[in-house]
């Protein structure tokens, strides 16, 4: 087959000692950057661009370095989610939900290696998807007009209910709060600033990275400060690390989950504007709907760790499809990669596969290499990472606070963002006291803008006709799934919830 011949050429380009070393370097740096709260894949890649330029690397080696960082960061984000309940980047948010409870149960090592394997599976299938389906997948992206995007985002919110709280009302409140926060900034559809109070820093809206670090990391620090007089160390010191590898039985139960969510995440990644966060989110909530008969999701179910990790790494691969084939970045990171391609005199777009096959296939081969390398690197490193848990909170928490401040300041270079972050930290602390889940808030801020803009685009295009929202088979299909996802739990939910409450009483486990 021609494809395999091309791929072999790609490997021939990618497999040199220099490129392998670059991939190794990229994977390592990416993992570290992904694990640090605040520094996500897009900043990670952006930071390394000058390095690629200064080393005078050609197109393929530069791309190998930068995509290794990209994949590495997608791997690394899970580490702090699982160990500290602080997502390293936004797609890793969903991994907190089951990963942290697993760590609390003494299964941190297992959670880390399972999520490493899930990441590998997701990225592996996504890369194959990229090879075989890229030209066809572009057609999927073209099926999505504003009305369809709105239906897709609505689906995300309608399946939100059961995600992170047993109390639906609190989830809805959190989502509404997030949507409200998303309205801050200049409205692109009219050019009018909303809720900015003349403050130029707010014109671009609230940065969700700032919101995440504030809500998750800082509020954790505040809670620690509050409990310091009590003996919060006692709780932590009970933690055992447990075995470091994933038992085969656990892998077996998770395999169908990983396969399903790889497909789902990949598709979410292919859609420009949806990206990895939506991939991991939809993977988690769909998987919960599908297999969570006993209501164990959210209390440390391994499948709840495997689902979002496979989903977000598959989405990372999927996001490369519109970037390469259309020149449209599907996420912040692919926007950076696109800029790199452009500055290397390569124009992504419909003709890239025909005009620059060496670059495309070299890149794809690099993705395989990076992925394998990350798996090989991450599994032995699990024991190193888990040692983090042995650090007493009185030392760890100041470090978390420091990394948060330095990370956010390093990205935006603005002290205003630090104040916003502190604001979010206080808000997170209050909301945790009220047992309001934090994940829907982030989802609201993350997706709110895109959802609103697409609704208004759709309505404007059709001159104010609201029926345009259900004007295509695809839109209708998405709405049906959304409504089923919303209504079914209301009918069957009572039984499940009763079971959940019982378990919660037994374990008095934590919601995030």
């Amino acid at each position: 087959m021609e494809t395999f011949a091309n791929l072999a050429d790609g490997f021939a380009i990618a497999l040199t000692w220099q490129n392998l070393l670059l991939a190794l370097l990229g994977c390592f740096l990416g993992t570290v950057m992904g694990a640090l709260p605040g520094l996500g894949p897009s900043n990670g890649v952006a930071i390394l661009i000058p390095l690629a330029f200064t080393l005078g690397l050609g197109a393929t080696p530069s791309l190998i370095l930068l995509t290794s960082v990209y994949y590495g960061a997608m791997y690394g984000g899970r580490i702090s989610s699982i160990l500290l309940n602080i997502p390293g980047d936004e797609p890793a948010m969903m991994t907190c939900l089951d990963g942290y409870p697993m760590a609390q149960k003494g299964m941190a090592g297992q959670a880390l290696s399972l999520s490493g394997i899930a990441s590998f599976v997701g990225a592996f299938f996504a890369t194959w998807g990229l090879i075989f389906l890229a030209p066809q997948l572009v057609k999927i992206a073209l099926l999505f007009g504003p009305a369809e995007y709105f239906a897709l985002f609505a689906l995300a919110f309608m399946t939100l209910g059961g995600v992170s709280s047993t109390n639906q009302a609190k989830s809805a409140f959190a989502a509404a709060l997030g949507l409200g926060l998303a309205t801050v900034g200049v409205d692109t559809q009219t050019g009018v600033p909303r809720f900015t109070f003349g403050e130029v820093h707010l014109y671009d809206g609230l940065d969700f990275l700032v919101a995440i670090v504030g809500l998750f990391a800082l509020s954790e620090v505040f809670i620690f400060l509050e409990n310091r007089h009590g003996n919060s160390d006692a709780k932590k010191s009970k933690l055992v690390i447990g075995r470091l590898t994933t038992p085969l039985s656990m892998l077996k139960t998770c395999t169908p989950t990983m396969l399903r969510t790889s497909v789902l995440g990949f598709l979410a990644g292919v859609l420009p504007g949806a990206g990895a966060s939506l991939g991991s989110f939809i993977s988690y909530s769909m998987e919960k709907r599908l297999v969570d008969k006993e209501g164990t999701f959210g209390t440390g179910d391994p499948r709840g760790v495997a689902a979002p990790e496979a989903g977000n790494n598959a989405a990372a691969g999927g996001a490369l499809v519109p970037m390469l084939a259309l020149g449209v970045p599907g996420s912040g990171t692919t926007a950076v990669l696109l800029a790199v391609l452009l500055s290397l005199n390569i124009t992504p777009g419909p003709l890239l596969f025909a005009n620059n096959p060496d670059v495309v296939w070299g890149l794809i081969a690099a993705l395989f290499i990076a992925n394998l390398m990350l798996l090989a690197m991450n599994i032995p490193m699990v024991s190193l990472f888990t040692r983090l848990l042995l650090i007493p909170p009185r030392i760890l928490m100041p470090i978390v606070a420091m990394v948060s401040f330095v990370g956010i300041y390093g990205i935006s270079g603005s002290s205003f963002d630090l104040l916003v972050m502190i604001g979010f930290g206080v808000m997170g602390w209050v909301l945790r006291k009220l047992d309001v889940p934090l994940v829907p808030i982030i989802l609201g801020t993350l997706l709110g803008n895109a959802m609103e803009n697409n609704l208004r685009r759709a309505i404007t295009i059709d001159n104010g006709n609201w029926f345009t929202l259900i004007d295509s088979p695809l839109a209708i299909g998405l709405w049906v799934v959304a409504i089923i996802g919303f209504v079914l739990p209301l009918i069957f939910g009572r039984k499940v919830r009763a079971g959940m409450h019982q378990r919660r009483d037994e374990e008095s486990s934590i919601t995030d």
Partner: protein
Amino acid sequence: MLFNASRLAIAAAILCTSTLAASAQNYSPENPECIAPANPGGGWDFTCRQVGKSLQDQGLLDSTMQVVNLAGGGGGVAFAEVVNKRGDDNDLIVAASSATATRLAQGAYPGNTMDQVRWLASIGADYGVIAVAADSEIADLPQLLEIIKTDPTAISLAGGSGVGGWDHLKVLIAAREFGVQDVRTVKYIAFDGGGEAVTQLLAGSVQAFTGDLSEARGFVESGDIRVIAVLAPERLGGEFAEMPTAREQGIDAIGANWRGFYAPGGMSDAAYDAWVAKIADLYASDAWKEVMEANGLAPLDLQGAAFEEFVSSSVNQIQQISREIGIIK
């Protein structure tokens, strides 16, 4: 319109730079820094990184230019930072484009005006295009504008900038030239970037696209979209020669998205002249011509005072249109 002035300006610029070049080489920035007033991946980020790389490759800078991304407020955060805190920094330049001028003209950087900084030089321009899908029935620009004139609801135009942004204004300039009475009725749909807007044109959600040539060229080459007008003074060279200009279709509309730099208002004359000379040398090099070609940038060779003049005249023009369409009072 814009270019009648700029032709003169180009002539003036050539005179200026030749005299500048002699005196300017004394100053050399120790820690050159470029602020990209947006997140990595956008046009401003590209401007900083590409120019930084090329300056170093050409030996015009001894050390690597550090690129700082200072996003926020559509460039307003960076502008305020430069004006308020880095007013006399001699090593600092900031990426700018038509979007910067548009926002300054519309007062979207609260309390800031273009006089507060020194405008250095342009590094090229990206001409505006209006395009339709390859299988569209619309053959040329007058036909498109005629449909808009009779029934504005029939055509949705997609662009990558917000309402009141440059992609929007360009098409309004054309519509006004054609004689559309109330340009506010033109239906413009704002997307997050030109790529997304083109994708929606391909998807059939909208009927026309307004944006920069560089955003459209990949799809033109593949035959997916058809450019019905380039908003350039005359036909472009090379592979773009087939595209008709708006002017030859009887609509005297010109819109260029220029890229360039400004520097802090308190930068010393020696440093200002040195930066202007460096960018002028870069612009004149063959390597930069290749970069421009690869990125779909057309020539726009303005430095120092001529560039300052050019920005000032485009700010005035944008203010005038924005007032007409009611974006500013």
